């Protein structure tokens, strides 16, 4: 691999993915098992201790990885697909429609992710699906706006005109010219958005608007741990640390993809 950032990012991201995968097959305890003592320190029974309900912290953290990744990946898939479609549509649209979409995207982008997500969640109650929908929809404009610009840039090239005159269909141009040229920028953006989505989910859960238990979200764990921070500081540190590692991983992957795609940008971040 040509980029250290990409390697480091893949390692971090891969680590969290591995934890999430393992949690699907095995966790030290059942997530609802409250048989441990309350706020136990780390020990042989509970490697990282227990929370204030006597649940095993390691188990909660592992399930938190699964929740964070599924919401992050789901939101990126939804926001990326909708954003790319909107970007393509605007790029190909006639002048006035493109103008309308540009204004619409400007307005949408002015809606902060967190507020938009709160609105969707208020409409749909907290669940895994509504968190994905909320964050994914909020992401759409952030993906669509640069995509639209890049699509327009590619469509203005002479080789596209040449392809048109030689009879290539519009779908052929999208597949043959537009997508290959915009994918590096799109991939970079989506990797960054994965980190943002994970942070947004943590923020929502922290505010009490996230998926309900037993989906042990890291943000929710932090909300719970706030009251007992003096007795059990580990409960505050561990979920936050994993969250940071996951987001740094996503950001590093974004940097790495950018470096590989455009060596001139090496050293930028």
């Amino acid at each position: 691999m040509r980029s250290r950032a990409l390697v480091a990012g893949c390692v971090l991201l891969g680590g969290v993915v591995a934890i999430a995968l393992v949690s699907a097959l095995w966790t030290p305890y059942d997530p609802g098992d409250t048989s441990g003592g309350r706020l136990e320190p780390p020990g042989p029974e509970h490697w990282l201790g227990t929370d204030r309900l006597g649940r095993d912290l390691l188990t909660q953290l592992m399930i938190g990885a699964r929740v964070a990744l599924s919401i992050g990946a789901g939101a990126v898939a939804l926001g990326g697909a909708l954003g790319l479609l909107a970007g393509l549509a605007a790029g190909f649209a006639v002048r006035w429609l493109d103008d309308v979409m540009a204004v619409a995207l400007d307005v949408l982008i002015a809606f902060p992710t967190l507020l938009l997500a709160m609105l969707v969640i208020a409409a749909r109650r907290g669940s895994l699906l509504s968190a994905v929908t909320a964050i994914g929809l909020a992401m759409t404009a952030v993906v669509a706006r640069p995509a639209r610009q890049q699509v327009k840039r590619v469509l203005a090239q002479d080789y596209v005109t040449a392809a048109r005159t030689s009879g290539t269909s519009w779908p052929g141009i999208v597949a043959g010219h537009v997508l290959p040229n915009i994918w590096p920028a799109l991939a970079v953006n989506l990797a960054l958005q994965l980190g943002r989505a994970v942070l947004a989910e943590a923020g929502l859960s922290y505010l009490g608007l996230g998926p309900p238990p037993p989906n042990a979200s890291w943000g929710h764990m932090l909300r719970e741990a706030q009251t007992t921070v003096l007795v059990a500081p580990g409960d505050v540190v561990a979920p936050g640390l994993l969250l940071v590692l996951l987001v740094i991983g996503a950001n590093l992957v974004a940097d790495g993809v950018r470096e590989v795609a455009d060596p001139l940008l090496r050293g930028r971040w």
Partner: protein
Amino acid sequence: MAAYLVRRALLLALSLAVSSVALFVLLRVLPGDPANALLDVGATARQAAAARHELGTDLPLSQQFGGWLRDLARLDLGRSLVSSLPVTSEIAGRLGVTVPLTVLAFLLAALIAVPTGFLIALRRGTWYGTLLAGVSQLGLAVPVFWVGMLLVTVFALRLRWLPAGGFPAEDWAAPAAALTSLLLPVVTIALVMAASLTRYVHSAALDVLDSDYLRTARALGAPLRAALWRHGLRGVAAPVVPILAIELASTFLGAVVVENVFALPGLGSMLVRAFAQHDYPVIQGVLTLSTATVLTIGFVADTAQRLIDPRLRRTAAGTSA
């Protein structure tokens, strides 16, 4: 410039209109009857109908929207379903926390980020340039509420230097106490905001350092410091000003979350409580104000950017093209 201002102001007006309609529709299609907030458990259908009539939610949507717009023009955002107080006065009471929190955090973030961004660009390749870059990379990945929790744990709960949360009941009549309660929240938001801002300043500074005009100035004999001062700052300011505006908006959002960490009676905690209580007039009022603020900041930033960078004035549209 005049033509641009008119065009941009029209866009602002259009965005404000679209967003207020969107907010209105979104909140009205939400399941759950706002009237329930007024009713006791076991209320009869007639009582429910009376509550709906009182709220005006039994009218057709278009009429409701018209009424809401008329009230908005008189700065009347309705009454809270929970406290029955006018939303406008509730918001006004809480701006005394959120506005100073946002502005102070934003200023501190800019004070940290602008020199740091320049320094990383000037010292690329050295160990502390790399270290600073690493630290700001870290800041991009940290949830703002977690930073707040860690700072509270260390400075309020362990060292007991600062209050862990809350705001003096006397409000700003006790300025020292008010500032002390805002100190940790301001630092929390500023640290996280500074990280992303540093990144943009760094990128803009690199562009300037590699630019032909700076090389020319240096070749003509200007020392680096003088050349940067004379030409560089303007070159950095042009791309950074709109970013600052976006950052100001996210600082405000940071305040929404961080107010909940520190139990500050601001707009953010008001919004979160309103969501929990399904207090729709409050949600709508706070969101309308927030969106209008963010859109207006964008307008000011775009205009400022054209004043700073004369090259932009020669292109026709320049906003979203």
